[in-house]
């Protein structure tokens, strides 16, 4: 074989040892990657049982990359590279990459903390930085949300960690605060009675915790009050809609007036009457 290689003028560069080494390296790479994949899948499966799907995916990826790095390092050794030199180069590269990828690193670390802290999980409904939606996934660098008008929003983990997150699906029951105003002439005790009776008649409105009646004060147009009612979280919208409807019906039936501000129209600076034309 050396004659064949010499005839191509590669006698010095490509020696049988080197070819052998290349062959071994390729073999190591091939077998190693295959084993790395198998092992990481196995670790992933074991982690799923223990840590849940989200974390298991991360653990599987992390272990695969670790094994991948080991396999490549071994393959490179087969080729004759010295690992020390490699690590030195890697060190310099890391610093350079680190400076360049500060945001991504921050997102990565934030992601890890999110997974550990668990303020919300996949499937929860959250509001973060003004965006409300269902959590589709919590990934390495970002959280993916689906808004209720079916838009896809990518929230960097960094901003999730830094800002206030409201989780709508953490607690099982929720309170609806209904702001109501009634005319000054109304008997407030009677109004409270009517509101409580309406809540009582509504099956979605929880008996306990009891509805809360709060008198807010004497407003500009009306006497202002707040009537807070609880419902099972899933029934929140239905309960609130039905309560508003039923309160209006009850007020109309009892003759309770809900005032609203009126606007006076003036026709320009001169106060002449606004012309009206009657058509038959």
């Amino acid at each position, binding site marked *: 074989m050396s004659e064949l290689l010499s005839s191509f003028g590669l006698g010095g560069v490509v020696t049988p040892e080197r070819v052998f080494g290349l062959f071994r390296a390729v073999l190591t790479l091939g077998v190693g990657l295959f084993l790395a994949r198998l092992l990481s899948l196995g670790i992933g499966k074991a982690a799923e049982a223990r840590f849940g799907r989200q974390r298991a995916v991360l653990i599987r990826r992390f272990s695969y990359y670790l094994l991948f790095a080991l396999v490549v390092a071994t393959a490179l050794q087969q080729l004759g590279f010295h690992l020390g030199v490699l690590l030195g180069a890697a060190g310099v590269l890391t610093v350079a990459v680190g400076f360049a990828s500060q945001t991504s690193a921050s997102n990565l670390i934030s992601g890890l903390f999110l997974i550990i802290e668990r303020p919300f999980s996949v499937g929860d409904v959250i509001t973060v930085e003004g965006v409300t939606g269902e959590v589709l996934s919590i990934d390495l660098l970002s959280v993916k949300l689906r808004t209720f008008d079916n838009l896809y929003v990518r929230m960097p983990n960094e901003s999730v960690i830094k800002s206030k997150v409201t989780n709508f699906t953490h*607690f*099982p*029951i929720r309170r609806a605060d209904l702001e109501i105003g009634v005319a000054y002439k109304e008997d407030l005790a009677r109004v409270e009675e009517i509101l409580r009776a309406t809540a*009582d*008649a*509504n*099956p*979605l*409105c*929880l*008996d*306990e*915790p009891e509805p*809360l009646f*709060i008198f807010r004060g004497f407003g500009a147009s009306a006497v202002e009050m*707040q009537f807070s009612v*609880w*419902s*099972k979280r899933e*029934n929140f919208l239905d309960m609130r809609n039905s309560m508003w409807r039923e309160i209006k019906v009850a007020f109309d039936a009892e003759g309770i007036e809900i005032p609203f501000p009126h606007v006076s129209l003036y026709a320009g600076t001169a106060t002449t009457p606004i012309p009206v034309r009657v058509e038959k």
Partner: protein
Amino acid sequence: MSGTWWGEFRVEEGVTRYWQVGPLRLWATRQPEEWQLATESTADNLANEVAAAVEPPTQPGPDARTARFGFRSSPKAIRLAPATADRPVVVKAASPFFIPAGEELSLFVSTALWLQVRVDGSTDLLYETPFHRPSDTWFGSSTREGELCYAAKIAIRHRLESVPRRPHRAISVVRIRNRAATQLELERLKLPSPVLSLYGCEDGSIWTESVTLERREEGENAMVTLGRGAPRAADNARKIAGPRQHVEPGILSRTFGGLFGRTGARNHERVAE
């Protein structure tokens, strides 16, 4: 209240049979390959009437719920039976009631029932609906954890005679034993309806087995034990429905409920609102 409404009823093809049990009206029509059901519930939970007719006196209104079931050949008979609520029921005391340490007594509660419809030849449930949809309520020490239950509109009664007899409600005898060293303030109790069976009497009254709540220590937990068979107060009762869920006898659970009692989220609300 007059007589039992549950049982098996044979219906000819093309015929609509009608029942009224308390606030609920049911129309059942048999066709060659179909059964059609319609139910309508009035808001009047105190309605007492029981009626059954082969010719419906009225037709279902626009708010009636309807359901149609297809069969290769529609079964000849329909079976009506009551069922307990599918969640525990919270019953409140009308006024503050205390049971001193070491004392025991019996109380009586009336809880909502569901109507279950099955067809001849099958034990599968075809259709079910409450006679009157009870109100949801939360039973727990805080708004963060607890259980969603139904609220019984009829308060705890201290004498059996004062329990209203209704064809669409079940009567339960609850024996409370306070074995703890302190007095028990009974504001409300949670009846584990899904694990109770139903027994019917000839006069149309429906009973569950008796329930014993034994408070052994400070706090709101009690050992719940169920009686075997119909309670003594039910004359000649026959079992007409089994429990929705089977559970081990003697369950320790939060039963009395100091829901937002002297401590709890309620006080926080009062401070900050």
